[in-house]
């Protein structure tokens, strides 16, 4: 296993290169990582020596096959961790990005796989896609269809905001209209708001939206009782339309 600095370099080059195939100049690497030029030169040179990078004629480098494998794995860990931190734990997006940068080097492939499958807990009929977060859709792509920076920055939106609802699935309670009857698909941050469970709002249960105020407070009917829910909690309840 490579030291974390080296992994960071490979990840940065992988990200800058976009599809992973373009060659990258040393200036770009320095700018992305914010290191000193001399240090960057030395590190890149050692990565070339060990066969992770390929030195090209015009003083640029490109990932070798070996380098691409390491880089895409680290980049994936970063995405999964960031998704987990923001979507599941509600950590602020920037902080999650930084923290994912630290954690990605220590975490095992096995754990990342489990974390990833834990997160897409969407019930069948969902094609196994985490309904809340587009990272998971990207997750399904082959490493070749790598992610460019612009789509990564898309993910920096605070969770749940400005995320339009595609069709009638992958919505939160807030996307529903008054009178809709929907099935709860999953609850983000499942360990918070225990009372939702005790009042009968759990994955699989069918609820009816009784009232939705313009300020997004909602009343749902579940098990014959009306429950008033604040907008920020309603936002964490992901629903799908009833069959």
């Amino acid at each position: 296993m490579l030291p974390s600095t080296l992994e960071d370099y490979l990840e940065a080059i992988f990200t800058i290169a976009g599809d992973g195939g373009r060659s990258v100049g040393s200036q770009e690497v320095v700018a992305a990582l914010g290191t000193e030029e001399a240090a960057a030169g030395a590190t890149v040179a050692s990565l070339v020596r060990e066969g992770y990078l390929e030195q090209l004629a015009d003083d640029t480098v490109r990932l070798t096959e070996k380098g691409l494998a390491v880089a895409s794995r680290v980049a994936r860990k970063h995405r999964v961790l960031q998704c987990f931190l923001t979507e599941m734990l509600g950590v602020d997006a920037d902080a999650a990005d930084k923290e994912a940068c630290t954690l990605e080097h220590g975490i095992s492939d096995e754990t990342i796989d489990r974390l990833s499958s834990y997160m897409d807990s969407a019930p069948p009929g969902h094609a196994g896609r985490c309904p809340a977060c587009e990272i998971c859709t990207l997750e399904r792509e082959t490493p070749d269809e790598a992610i460019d920076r612009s789509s990564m920055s898309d993910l920096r939106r605070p969770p749940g905001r400005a995320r339009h609802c595609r069709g009638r699935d992958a919505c939160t309670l807030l996307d529903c209209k008054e009178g809709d009857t929907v099935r709860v698909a999953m609850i983000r941050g499942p360990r918070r708001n225990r009372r939702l469970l005790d009042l009968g709002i759990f994955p699989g249960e069918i609820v009816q939206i009784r009232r939705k105020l313009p300020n997004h407070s909602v009343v749902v009917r579940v098990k014959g009782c009306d429950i008033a829910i604040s907008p920020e909690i309603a936002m964490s309840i992901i629903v799908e339309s009833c069959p």
Partner: protein
Amino acid sequence: MKFALIGNPSVGKSLIFNQLTGLGVEVSNYPGTTVELQRGNTCFQREMIELVDLPGIYSLDGESGEEALVRRFLEQQDTDVVIAVLSATRLERNLYLLLQVAEYGLPMVVVLNMVDEAAKQGLEIDPGPIGDLLGVEVILTAASQGKNIDRIIPAALAATRPVKVEVPYDHHIEAAIRSLGKISAADRKESIRALQGFGENPDLLEAAQTIAEEIESRHRMTVAQIIAANRHNFAHQIAGLTIKEKTLHQKTDLDGILTRVIPGIPILIGILLGMLLVVFVVGSFLEELIVELFDIFLLQPFLALGLPPIVDALGTALILALQAGLGIAFPYVFLFYIIISVLEDSGYMTRAAFLADNAMHRVGMHGGAVIPLTLAFGCNVPAIMSVRLLHSRRERIIASFLVTMVPCSARTVIIAGIVAGFVGIGAAFSVYAIVFALIVLTGLVLSRITPGEQFGMIMEMVPLRRPDTRLVMRKAWMRLSEFLFIAMPLLLVGSVVLGLLEFFGIMAIFEGFVEPYTMALLGLPGYSATALIFGILRKEMAFETLAILAGTADLGAVLSSLQLYIFAVVTVLFIPCLATITVLLREVGSRITLAVTIYTVALGLFIGGLMYRILA
């Protein structure tokens, strides 16, 4: 023998408790009314039975204070029989808690309450399936009519066999229960609780945690979610068997009106303003009547007696105190309590909480905070106690500040008696406007500076009920009698002491000393400072003391309109009363209590001073 009443909020536990023991426990129609264990005794066939009324809860696995309290109570097995009270109108959700309680394996009696309301909704209840499943006696009752309540105690005395129920859990959970049983010899209930992270045994907890993680990774649901879903589904099945026929009567749905922005919010504001207006108009009319009767039939005959000066002074002080006290108690305090009891019993408070949720978020709390804030109009003491229904310390701190600033009925007496009485009803409402503006401002500032996490609201909208006149009057009377028997003696003693101090000229010395300051700061005479200080004991004493010190109940004759207005504003804002300080200490601790006290004193003097500068 010891029996405990357990059940969801608003199923009628407290009402049943009252009927069984004859004690006065407060009954309200919103979650969180009973926050402590209520104990009472009853006699049945010469046997003494202790009854415990547990707070209403939704689950035994929750995190709230009440849920933890009930959990501890059941774990200690501190009761011979559990009397589970369920509402027949919300049977399925109530059965969820019943299944959890049944897992504790204590002897049990099931009371299906509110069958009258269920019948109105076209539900036909068959107690058979629940009785067969749990092996317990099931009693159908209608507590509001007292129907079948007398059967509860005999049934509880007959229940000796521990109840046994096995909720069919998911097969992974069942497997976990078996393995935990083998590893640590834990029984079914302990295993289920350990899987959710509850319990004392560290080995069991560790093993359970490992298994729980494994299950969670396979199911992609938390163990708590799986267990809750299994219980809910089982409850659904039982409810399906119990509710025989469902001929849906289309009821007129009041919520269609009450919980929409229009006309819901105008109705909410109308109710609050109407409450104040009724208290003002009817209250001041009744007060005048009482004051006049005292003048004609007590004060004037007494003065005509021509007694020695010290007796005369003391007697006058006593009569004035009685006059002011009764003039306050019946008209204002009693009216307020009646209106608030109606609001509480009807279930309207949860609608108000829903409508105000967004506004309350702005001041750092959630909609539930409407309940303490509205209660505070009656008295700040129960309002501070109900602050517990907010989850985080941050919300409770903000609520404590705001609740103590809400003009309670005693302060309404001052506003109505002094400002509305001598300055004008418009001016009286302007005092409210000032106070409300300050409350909003304080909330905005506190929500920025108070550390801690904010939680959203998840609140059951309890069914609307027509408040029972008898219950409302009894509750209002219970609260009023607290005023009559605790506050009135204090008022009388305080007045006599004051009369004595006045007679011997001690007051004059003190007032001469403070007068330059009060005149400079607020433009008020020295004796108003004495009145303010007595206001700390009970707010209404400020009014009364002022009347005694001024030597007349007709304050308009001795003080200018501006002076009366400023005095009222300062008194309303100035320091919470002694009783409020005491509950604040218990609920939020000494530091916050001190902060609230200093803040309100400073605010009162500052606003009073400011108004004097601007208006004079």
